[in-house]
């Protein structure tokens, strides 16, 4: 792989108790949401996790970002085992790993200003804000392509795509080396989606972070990922370089998934391209 090994996950298992199954003297039945997942993430790499709804993608991402405790398995960050860290010991993880969430509005506190939201990681980690809070926010907003003068606004005053950029700005505030994007573009319109994907791609090129990109839209994944892992029922059934997976799917499930993607007829596409080129 291109860069140094940032995140290494081995045999990750996460089980949830199933509500209502607990007997009087027996514990609740367990549902295995993530079942022996392993992967590596290198700097500059974008690893996409794809799979149908409920296959355990988000859970995997949360485990990797240490937002959930694992049932078993190990997580190594920068060569250090962080699997069982708790409370204050997680500061190191928080400094390295940041998350961009699916729903741009739900993930921004509606009662906080942009400035407060974007500087929150620094505040919470009790770090100095380089160049003062306002200037820092301005430069950050500028970086994600937002008007720097909007720093006193509230999330409700933004469109979905703008809000998602604020989410990205927040994640970038502390200069993370691992960025976890859990369905970061699924809630957005195609056109906005395209903007955000481009933004992420550009930022990654500048900063060289490793990106764990969760999505269920294979078409989007194809645009952004360097490698792909396909999940179903909590397991990774196929993993590899993007072109290998898309071009020559080995696993039956991957093939089904690819086949189900709706397509515009290629001949129409070709015709359009030709006309566009002519214009």
């Amino acid at each position, binding site marked *: 792989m291109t860069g140094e090994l940032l995140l290494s996950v081995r045999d990750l298992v996460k089980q949830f108790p199933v*509500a*209502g199954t*607990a007997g*009087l003297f027996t514990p609740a039945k367990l549902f295995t949401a993530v079942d022996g997942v392993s992967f590596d993430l290198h700097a500059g790499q974008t690893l996409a996790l794809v799979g149908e709804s409920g296959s355990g993608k988000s859970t995997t991402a949360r485990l990797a970002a240490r937002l959930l405790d694992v049932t078993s398995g190990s997580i190594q960050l920068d060569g250090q085992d962080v699997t069982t860290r708790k409370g204050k010991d997680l500061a190191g993880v928080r400094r390295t790993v940041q998350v961009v969430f699916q729903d741009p509005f739900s993930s921004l506190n509606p009662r906080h200003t942009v400035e407060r939201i974007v500087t929150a990681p620094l505040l919470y980690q009790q770090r100095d804000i380089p160049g003062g809070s306002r200037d820092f926010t301005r430069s950050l907003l500028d970086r994600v392509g937002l008007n720097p003068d909007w720093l006193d606004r509230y999330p409700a005053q933004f469109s979905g795509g703008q809000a998602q950029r604020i989410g990205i700005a927040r994640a970038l505030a502390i200069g993370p080396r691992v960025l976890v994007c859990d369905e970061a573009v699924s809630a957005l319109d195609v056109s906005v989606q395209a903007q955000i994907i481009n933004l992420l791609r550009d930022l990654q090129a500048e900063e060289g972070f490793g990106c764990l990109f969760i999505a269920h839209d294979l078409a989007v994944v194809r645009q952004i990922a360097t490698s792909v892992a396909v999940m179903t029922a909590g397991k990774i059934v196929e993993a590899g370089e993007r072109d290998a997976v898309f071009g020559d799917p080995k696993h039956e499930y991957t093939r089904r998934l690819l086949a189900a993607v709706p397509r515009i007829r290629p001949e129409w596409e070709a015709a359009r391209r030709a006309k566009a080129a002519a214009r």
Partner: protein
Amino acid sequence: MTRYLVHRVLGMLFVLFMVCLFTYMVFFLLSPDPAVQICGKTCTPERIDQIRANLGLDDPFLAQFLHFLQGLFTGRDYGAVHCSAPCLGYSFQSSQVVTDMIVQRLPVTAVVAVGAAVLWLLAGVIGGLISAVREGRFADRFITALTLGGMSVPNYVLALALQYVFVVQLQWLPFPQAVPFADDPAQWFLNFILPWTVLAVGYASSYTRLTRANVIDTLSENFVRTARAKGLRPHLVWRRHALRPALTPIVTIAGMDFAGLLGGALITETVFGINGVGKLAADSITKNDQPVIMAVTLLAAFFVVVGNMAVDLLYSAIDPRVRAGATS
């Protein structure tokens, strides 16, 4: 499901136990010596001591509390008087077994509570539904104004006002009289009209508001749009699709409110001279009859806790989502 039930029952028993303990403790600490009260106006210290010994009042707190608990299950003796289980104590003011006093009054309170509940549920649900489907129009404003008024007038003021207007001035209703149902059902019914109304007004107001809010919420649900898209008649859409889901939380609250009322409608019963549990409580408080106050408190707490549980179970019966979750 069984586990859930067992949990609920255990939780309920725990809460009841705590209520018992706390009430007993409070009254133990606050209460003036019951023996002095029993002894009456003219009394000697020896007689007081004797009464204390007789009633077990000279035991330490814990022993007394245990006796009380024991009495609940096995009954107990107060001097020459036997109080059979569940024994809620012995009234020192009227020298009666408290259980008897309550048994005598509970049916009256139940009549008051049931009648009022029927009234307020009908008024609240119908009013709320009308208000919701006519949102923003005259009917809605009118009903909203009524409910705000209904919630702002203290019920003792309302009770007196209604009595003055309908009984004294217009003479449409007779003065309340204690008539057993069997003797004269018509008179019996007339007697309860005012208390039912007074009790119902406050509740009906808040139920109207609640129903309105819930129905407005459900009206904006997608499934209501689906129902309309099916071409259903509006009354079917409102009744079946908007009201039914909106009623679920109302049933929950109604159960609790009703249970609360079984513990006595203190003010209404007092104002109208209805000889129910609430009046018993009010009278006992003015007489400082601690055992009775304690018993009424416990009874009311019991109803609330049991009502709460009943509502939880009912909830799973009326909401298919919960039902499936609980039985699986």
